[in-house]
């Protein structure tokens, strides 16, 4: 089974968060707990369900990832963009600098 992590959006501000091994929601995908089997994914999802735990996130779900060189990289482009922020060059103040983002999701300037 492909490795998976649990993600959601934080209720108060909508920011993307990832479930850690300590069962807290963290903004850094690299701190997410990686589950490698079905039972662990189901247990993590059960733990993160807003109906039974804290009501501080919206709609948690599992995301397939690859762990390479100690970095957690979501497989789908959508989830990589969620993890790293918009890919747009020349972004406005407050966004993370482009250098901090994954090089592989930045647009190739033709």
């Amino acid at each position: 089974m492909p490795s998976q992590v649990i993600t959601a959006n934080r209720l108060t501000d909508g920011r993307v968060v990832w479930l850690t091994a300590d069962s807290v929601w963290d903004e850094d995908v690299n701190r997410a707990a990686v589950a490698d089997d079905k039972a662990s994914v189901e247990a993590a999802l059960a733990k993160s369900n807003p109906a039974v735990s804290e009501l501080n996130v919206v709609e948690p779900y599992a995301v397939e990832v690859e762990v390479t060189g100690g970095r957690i990289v979501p497989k789908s482009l959508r989830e990589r963009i969620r993890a790293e922020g918009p890919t747009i060059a020349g972004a406005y103040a407050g966004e993370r600098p482009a250098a901090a983002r994954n090089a592989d999701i930045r647009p190739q300037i033709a």
Partner: protein
Amino acid sequence: MYRYDEFDQQFVQARVDQFRDQVQRRMAGELTEEQFRPLRLMNGVYLQLHAYMLRIAIPYGTLNSHQLRTLAAIGRKYDRGFGHFTTRQNLQFNWPALKDIPDILTELAAVEMHAIQTSGNCIRNVTADQFAGAAADEIADPRPYAEILRQWSSLHPEFSFLPRKFKVAISGAAHDRAAIRVHDIGLQIVRDEAGRIGFEVFIGGGLGRTPFTAWHLRDFLPEEDLLAYCEAILRVYNLYGRRDNKYKARIKILMHEAGLETVREQVEEEFERIRDGALKLPHGDIERIAAYFAPPVFETLPAESAAQAAAEAADPAFRAWVRANVHPHKQPGYASVTVSLKPVGGIPGDATSEQMEAVADLADRHAFGEIRVSHVQNLILAHVRRDALKAVYDGLVAADLATANVGLASDIIACPGLDYCSLANARSIPVAQRISERLGAPDRQAEIGPLQIKISGCINACGHHHVGHIGILGVDRKGEEFYQLTLGGSADETASIGDITGRGFSTAEVVDAIETVVDTYIARRQSADETFLEAYRRLGLQPFKEALYGAA
């Protein structure tokens, strides 16, 4: 401009108070997301990929400078110092926190703004020609009618749970700058033989996964019957529009399935039943609303401005900007100015708080304090003395807002795409940026001439790709972004849906493909005066297809 009366202020404030309570209950865990979602959507609050998004209504795209400054201040205080102007003449903030939204709505209410009916299955913000009240070719100002429709449709109890969303656009000129033929109801102001004002009515236009240009429903609707007739249309739609399938719920599908004659018969029958009732618009009421939109006090000026001519002679960049961004005005000596929000390599429709403030200042100094938003995602100063054009230009240069490209290849419509939107399949903004870098050099754009490129990151078509002269649709193919091209679409009075060229292009290929289409047009046009759209309509798809994919 229209000013809220006591009733408007009261219902907007009541809604802010109600939503503040709902947000508090959600944060306290008293409401689940399932319960809260429809409540937040009714107040323009979406949850996108990275954050909440707040969509603020700008009725018929008209703002005063005070309102624009408030939007700038909200962007700075609660967001990341910018906002995004949309194809529905609205403004979206991409990064507000849910906990702050009640305060944002309170600040908006203080300047007579809100986010009501910017989402959900209701009648959305009514849109209009951005040159309303100014255009030289205008029959009548569409905004008083748009305001009457706003008052009728706001919190209309019967139409709060329609089968799907419902969009109305209105044009006061025969040249359609409001894309009325791709709206659920399109209204074209006309005069009858006796000189009376009325509306030519279009119905069932729309884009999305099943695009249609509108059906022609009525030649002439007298102005006093505007509300009764629209109510009749909405009633027929509310009753017969499909509710079994979200993708078949818009009125265009009802038109397609039931047919024009059936729908017209039903609408006319309901209209005859209610036309002499409470919705009949007394002439005095129309005049009372129209008074809010009375033209400013213009000076008597010569048609040509010596100051403008001298500045053009001295500054070629100013001359190029005048050619592209300045439009004829009905009053001699005046012009309308489009402030391009499409810098080459920039994000279509985005403006920083500082830029919004710069435009508000210029509006106060030179344009009677009034600003418009166009569906092409630009801003407009509607009434500027030609003598003041150079001062406006200099102010725009200082704010990085003087790109001379209105209607040209880099004046691209793009939706937020997969960089922000939870519905998107592919990115739009980076593609727009790369195309504008490729085609945006002044000489290159001048060589190409009028060209509308429109990009959507998914089939919902917020970027209007179906009606782009060149349309680009982002799709997901096995996890990769691909871009499908359509050619020959148009959103004006000759509205047409573009033809799909064939297989899509990868992220690496798409800009080259656009340039191939442009070069094919230049090689095949009869003269530099034949526009891309004219040439496409003469030549058809085949030569472009061959250029893109090789001869079959």
